[in-house]
Every structure is written in C-alpha cells, then in structure tokens.
C-alpha cells in the first residue's frame, strides 16, 4: 500500500502525498478520547470521515497550509460537525499542536464542536449545512483567477447535507465554469440527522445526481485511504470537476455505534469508551 502511495506522490508536482504516515487507528483513538473527555456528540460522523480527511490532507502541501501561503490548497469542511476528526487530523499532519486536542469542546477553547476558522489550519467556520461547498467554489474560482488553476480545493459534504438546495446551486456553477480544481467528497454514511438518509430523501444513485449536473463521479470505499486518493488523482487527470462518493459507516470501528442514528447526538460513557478503545486495540492487532 505504501508503495502504491509513493507512486501516486510522483505523478504530479504538487501531489505531496504522505498519508502512509498517518494511521486511521491513531486518529480514531484521538477522536474518541476528545469526544469522551468533552462528553460531546457527533461520534458517528467523526468516525465515518477519518479516512477521507487523511486522504485530502495527504494530497496537498500541508506546509503551505501550515504557513497560510496564499497559493495553498483549500480544504473546506462543509459538514462542520466533523470538527473533532478535523482537528485531530490537522494535529496528526503537524498543522495544529497536538496538545490543543485536549481542550476540545471545553470552556475557553477555540476547538468548538463545529469547525472554527479561529483554529489554525481551518479555512472556514461551518456548522449550518450547505455553506462550505459554496465557499469552496469561490476558492476554486479565486485560485484560477490568481493563476493557480492546478491547486486543489476540496469540499467534504455529508449525504444528508445534499438535501440543502445551496449544494446544487454550487454544482451548477462548478460544471458551467468547469472548475476542475474543485473535488467534492461525499461522506455517504447513509444516515442523515435523525434517521437513515434513504428514509428522508432517497437520492440514490448519487452518481446520477452529480453526473446530471455535469460532474464526473467516482464511488469508493470511504474507509480505504488509497482508494480515495486514487479517485482524487483520477479527477486531477481528467477534464471536468469531479465528485467522490465515499461509502462509509457512521460510527465506524465503534461496534455499538456503527450505523445507529442516535450516535449523531449521544455522548459516550466511561464504559462505552473503554469498550470502544478495547475494540480498536483488537482491530489494530489484527491489522
């Protein structure tokens, strides 16, 4: 796997891949610890997006993000409630001091429960859904206008978030302007807010929705970092903007939380935390 990623790394100049340095188990462990300490919610989504975050940050020059270079790639977390996973990923990529993670969701900390641009490395504060993608479109347009049309912009959306009309305003424009540097990742964890997405608004197949708007679509196992990165690279090599439908499991690797809608809201008890960590230990031992 590492060899495959090294080969991806060499395929284009700004493709500074280093996800092999980041172990999803390590990030998961950090996120569980943060959520448990803070008695915070959104465990489900924070567990489903970890590999997506690793793939996105693994595809860009994190030094430029750390330095806030004007020509940096932009990563927009449109589903802002995945804050714990985002902060943990930023820390594991060396953008955010790891010690800050201990302050997540606590009094006086900037590490709020939805991503907050006061935190170094976070491009934009989100929380209301259907915002981040539109800002990402502006970033992609701006990078093109500034003379950096190859610089990547990522937007990470939820499958429930696709119910917001502003998403499709963005998609129309992205396609019309052929903003090839914008790559949209959908965390297709099959749960919206209070119930399963297909019971709320059944939009399957998602690929047809995006293709109808003129985008190229790719479907991958959203817990396979390498597969996500290959899809990213494929869009980079293509001639139209693309979306990656990342099929994920909400609450991934937390056995009692997997695919259970209540874990959008519930906070984890001491016993549940111990059980989750033990399970991660077992999975890691088998990996």
């Amino acid at each position, binding site marked *: 796997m590492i060899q495959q990623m090294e080969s991806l790394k060499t395929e284009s100049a700004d493709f500074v891949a280093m996800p092999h340095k980041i172990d999803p188990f390590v990030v998961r462990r950090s996120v569980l610890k943060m959520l448990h300490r803070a008695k915070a919610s959104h465990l489900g989504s924070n567990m489903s997006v970890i590999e997506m975050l690793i793939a996105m940050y693994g595809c860009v020059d994190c030094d430029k993000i750390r330095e806030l270079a004007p020509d940096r790639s932009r990563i927009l977390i449109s589903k802002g409630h995945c804050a714990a996973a985002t902060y943990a990923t930023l820390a594991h990529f060396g953008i955010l001091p790891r010690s800050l993670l201990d302050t997540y969701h606590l009094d006086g900390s900037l590490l709020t429960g939805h991503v907050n641009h006061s935190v170094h490395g976070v491009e934009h504060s989100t929380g209301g859904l259907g915002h981040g993608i*539109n800002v990402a479109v502006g970033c992609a347009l*701006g990078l093109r206008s500034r003379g950096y049309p190859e610089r990547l912009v990522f937007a990470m959306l939820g499958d429930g978030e696709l119910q917001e009309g502003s998403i499709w305003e*963005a998609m129309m424009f992205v396609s019309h302007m052929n903003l090839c540097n914008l790559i949209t990742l959908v965390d297709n964890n099959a749960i919206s807010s209070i119930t399963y997405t297909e019971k709320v608004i059944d939009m399957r197949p998602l690929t047809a929705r995006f293709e109808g708007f003129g985008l190229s679509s790719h479907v991958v196992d959203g817990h396979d970092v390498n597969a996500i990165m290959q899809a990213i690279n494929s869009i980079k090599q293509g001639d139209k903007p693309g979306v990656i439908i990342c099929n994920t499991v909400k609450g991934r690797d937390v056995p009692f939380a997997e695919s259970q809608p209540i874990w959008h809201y519930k906070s984890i008890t001491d016993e549940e935390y111990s059980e989750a960590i033990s399970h991660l230990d077992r999975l890691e031992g088998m990996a």
Partner: protein
Amino acid sequence: MRGQIIDAIFARMQTDPDIFFLTADMGINLVEKFGETYPERYANVGIAEQNLIGISSGLANLGFRPFAYTISNFLIHRCFEQIRNDICMHNYPITLLGTSTGFDNAPLGPTHHIVDEWGALKSIPGIDIYCPSSVAYAASLLDKIEQAGRPAYVRIPKGGHTEPSSVEDMVKIAGENADMLLVSYGNPAQVCLEAQRRDPRLSVLIINRLHPLDDGSLIEALTPHRQILVVEDHFPLTGLYGSLCEFAARHPLNGRIKSAAPKNYAFDVGTTPEYFYKKFGIDVHSILKLAGN
C-alpha cells in the same frame, strides 16, 4: 445612484487587481462591461443568491474584495445565514450591492418592496450599512467602503438625486427654528427636503450611513430639537426609528421621537412609490401635518 457606484467600481478595477465583481444575473446593460473587460474577475453566478454569497466568501479567502450585486430583497432576505456565517463571522471585506429600496418597485407587489431588510441586517455585528441619498454620496461610497475594509451593505435607491451635494455620512440642513427635525435617508429624504422647501422652519437630517451611527454626530444633530420625526421607507421598529430610540435610551434627548413609516406589507397595487408614501403617511402632506401645519 446605481450608475455612480457601478462606474466607481469599474474604474477602480483597472488599478486594483483585488476587486472581483459578481452578479446573480441582474443588471442588464450595466454589468456586462465587467465581464467584457475583466473576465477573470467577474462572474454571473446565475439566479442563485446563496451561491453568490458563498462564492464571494471563498474569493475573499483568496484575498479578493468582492462586490456582490442583485436586488436587495433576494440579496438580504434569502441569504441571511450566508451573510451572518460566511461573511460577517469571517470579517470578509465583501460589499453587498442591493438595488431597489422601499417602494422603488411599487407595482410589483410586496415580495419586491424592500421595507425590512437592513433592519434585519443591522442585528449582525460587524457590517456597515449605507443608503446613499444623492449621487454625490453614491460616488464617494467606494472610498469609504475600501477604507473601512470590512463587510458592507449598500442599499441603492432608484433615482439620481443631486441634493444634498455633501459626501458626509450625516448631512444637516438647518431650518429657521429648532423645533422640528425631520430625519430620513434614501428616497424619502427627497420628500423631507420638499417639506422643508414648503415650510422653511423645518430642519432636515439626512443619514447616508445607517449603521453604525456615530454617537457624537447624532448628539450634535439631535439635541437642539424638541420634536424628531423619522421618515423612512422601512419598518420603524428595526429601521432608523428603532436605532434612534436605542440611541435616546443611552443619550437622553430634549425632543420626542416620532415615526412616519410603513407598518406592514402592502398587497395593493401602487404604480409609483408616491402611492405608498401617501398610504403610509410618508408623503409631503402628511409630514407637514405632523409638523403642525
């Protein structure tokens, strides 16, 4: 006034590479020159106002200073959360250019009457709100916005009024005695000036920057008067009347503050703004009557 603002932005784009102009498919025979001359700094995002604000925010992230143009009601009402979260929370120097105010679109019905938008917006910290009352102030606006370097909303009235010629945020035209002061902005300011021509005893205060108001200038302008009548084409509670009442609670005045303004939406046809001015008591006759004539 719209022309002065647009022309100033267009001229500035030649020397300022950070200006980006966006429209939500509005401004026929007006905005096309931006795309023709500066295609890399112009976008027509379509009739998609939420996207207009989101894209503007992304451009501001890149260091641009975007100007986002469409009709005021679509721009403000539909996009309130985008303006709050994506612009103001990030303190992005984005200027919202809203065309039409009050009853400028008189016969088009209540969805196109702009009578409650800036009052909603002023509840968000960090945004400047302008409503030019004359072409002179409109022409000076770009410099003021650029100097402030933060979010701004420009409520652009239809019309090309030449008076007052001042470019100050507050313009006072003193009357012959200190009893009654008319306070107004935008197109109703012309109604107040006409009332003053008919009754020279009246004083008129025209406010071109509606929010935030400068306390020092207000104290100086309001203190001499025993009666203050706020004349506006916006609901009074959240409009200038509300702002002055809040001010009076902090700085007790000698005078009492009254309102002449629409109190609700209008569902009847009026072919001109004057129809609604009369209906809601913001016409010259009603103002003179309130002033004791």
